């Protein structure tokens, strides 16, 4: 090509930055105010869970000098003391007299670990099984989908009790495992349907026509295009698992509060003392759950919008 005057704009064009789909999605996400707020909220709690326990002066389960009365009052400290007394910003809980802030901060660790861990586990397993099922089809698909049907029909509490019986009560790892086990089938169904659609795309045919292997087609062509819905569902299931953990712990089948506080079991222990008027005890762990879940859901909605290729600016 000989350089002519008409080539000049084209040369100028080269300086433009070429953004791929992920970069475009990130740009859209950044402009989504509610999503950025949600992400900030969620990341704040993640930071609290990660660093909080190192900063706080108290140990979670160790109160060296139990008080008789709450400071400056004649209320029995055994029932728990209200916020802002003697350095206990969120107050103390009844019975053990532990610092509520310390409990909530330490509880964030397990609640988030279970939520994020179970969601990640479920997504990876669901993506693998759903991907195989959708890509290869046939009898492989039939068998895997029947397993999915069976697991989806299992009641959560029943499975938790059975697992607890086998692996030990109150172990957070058992709870995480059960959540992942019952969570992946839903994601597998989603991924399967995505793969069923994507494997008939023309670019998949084109890849096959030039001799690309099945494995590479799955990982380089189909999976990247299925990623957006998977990311959204994974995000939203983190919130769902946090709530489920709280529920399971609240009714007493969850993580053992004596060793490992979670937002759920702090709430569970609070239930008898609500009547005494210890409003702070259920309020703060409850608030932590609500804010985290809200943050994740805002973030998930933002991701859904940002990752949708049809949304153009």
């Amino acid at each position, binding site marked *: 090509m000989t350089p002519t005057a008409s080539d000049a704009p084209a040369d100028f064009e080269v300086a433009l930055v070429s953004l791929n789909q992920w970069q475009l999605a990130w740009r859209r996400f950044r402009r989504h105010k509610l999503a950025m707020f949600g992400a900030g909220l969620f990341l704040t709690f993640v930071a609290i869970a990660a660093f909080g326990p190192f900063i706080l002066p108290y140990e979670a389960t160790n109160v060296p000098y139990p008080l008789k009365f709450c400071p400056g009052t004649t209320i029995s400290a055994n029932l728990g003391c209200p916020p802002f007394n003697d350095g206990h910003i969120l107050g103390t809980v009844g019975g053990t007299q532990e610092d509520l802030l310390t409990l909530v901060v330490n509880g964030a660790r397990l609640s988030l670990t279970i939520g994020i861990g179970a969601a990640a586990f479920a997504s990876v397993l669901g993506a693998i099984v759903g991907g195989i099922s959708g890509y290869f089809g046939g009898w492989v698909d039939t068998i895997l989908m029947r397993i999915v049907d069976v697991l989806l029909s299992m009641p959560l509490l029943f499975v938790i009790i059975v697992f607890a019986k086998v692996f030990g009560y109150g172990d957070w790892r058992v709870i995480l495992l059960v959540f992942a086990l019952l969570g992946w089938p839903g994601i597998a169904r989603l991924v399967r349907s995505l793969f069923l659609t994507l494997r008939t795309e*023309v670019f998949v045919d084109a890849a096959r026509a*030039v*001799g*690309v292997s099945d494995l590479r087609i799955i990982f*380089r062509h189909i999976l990247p*295009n299925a990623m957006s819905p998977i990311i959204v569902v994974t995000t939203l299931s983190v919130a769902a698992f946090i709530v489920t953990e709280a529920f399971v712990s609240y009714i007493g089948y969850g993580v053992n509060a004596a060793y490992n506080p979670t937002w759920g079991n702090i709430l569970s222990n609070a239930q008898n003392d609500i009547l005494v008027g210890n409003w702070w005890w259920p309020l703060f762990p409850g608030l932590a759950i609500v804010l985290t879940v809200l943050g994740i859901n805002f973030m998930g909605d933002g991701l859904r919008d940002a990752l949708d290729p049809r949304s153009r600016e």
Partner: protein
Amino acid sequence: MTDASSRLAETSAAAATGARPVLLETLNLKKYFPIMGGLLRHQVGSVYAVDDVSLQIYKGETFGLVGESGCGKTTFGRTILRLEKATGGSVSMDGQDVLALHGDALKRMRRRMQVIFQDPYGSLNPRMPISDIIGEGLLAQGDKANGWRKRSIRDQRVGDYLEAVGLRRDYSRRYPHEFSGGQRQRIGIARALALGPEFVVCDEPVSALDVSIQSQILNLLSDLRAEFNLTYLFIAHNLSVVQYFCERIGVMYLGKIVEVAATDVLYATPQHPYSVALLSAIPVPDPRVRTKRLVLKGDVPSPANPPSGCRFHTRCWLRERLGNPAECSTTEPPLRELAGGHLAACHFAEQVTAQAVQEAAATQSVIETAVDVD
């Protein structure tokens, strides 16, 4: 007659009788799609998309395949390329049985036969840069001899082919959404040609493009054919494009080849009643020309339940003229040779004359006549 001229006469005679070297040949190729139904999802029938198609495509030629939507022409191309599993028959490329290949041998064969798709949007992965889209085949086909596994060699070749299709080398870092339909189609062509194929299936490569872009892409395909010694199977439904672009043409109807002839022969003297009707539908870009279209009755029958005998007999204008001979609905007409290299699958192909066509058109109630402006 000198030696040279007699040799020339011989070769042209040989060309006329089909003795040119054959690159790709299909023999009774079949592709049936199962229809699943019932409570237990068992097979309740078949769609006869491609049924007993035998074709020879000569080295270096552009073979056009035309027919209505749903007649199986795309499926035929896909079955040759092993993108669909053939139900029966055989495909041979340079004498090698394509359908029997698997594993590495199939992969090596894919290097020799490539495809250009209709949809320039769907055929490029939106998540991949152009360098990966074109280079992927090279990576998959890379070995010690060609060195395509090495990024630098691959990128060099990707750039070369981008230039060959009229794009800039540095476009390779961009993503598909940054290109127009015509540019995307060029990228699709570069991807197909980067492997250095001999045979390329062009599956309606211009149908999805803007009319102003169509001719650019056709000229490009034509130049590339000369440059890289390609043989094309050109699948299309636009008859004007085919006439311009192809040397020989096969007409398909309901999964069968009904006529094969050199382009000028087919357009001048079509011998199958269906081809006659199809060709009469070409619009003439001149309002002063009175055209008489031979309009076929009814719709194309379902390929899941094709008519007996000749598949065209339910809509055939010639059969009507001849007083509905029983043969048409009972015996399937073989694809037989009428003159040098001109094949047609009709029991009464000899009855298709210009006069018969005119008379048939005249008796039709629907006759399209343009307003005479003069």
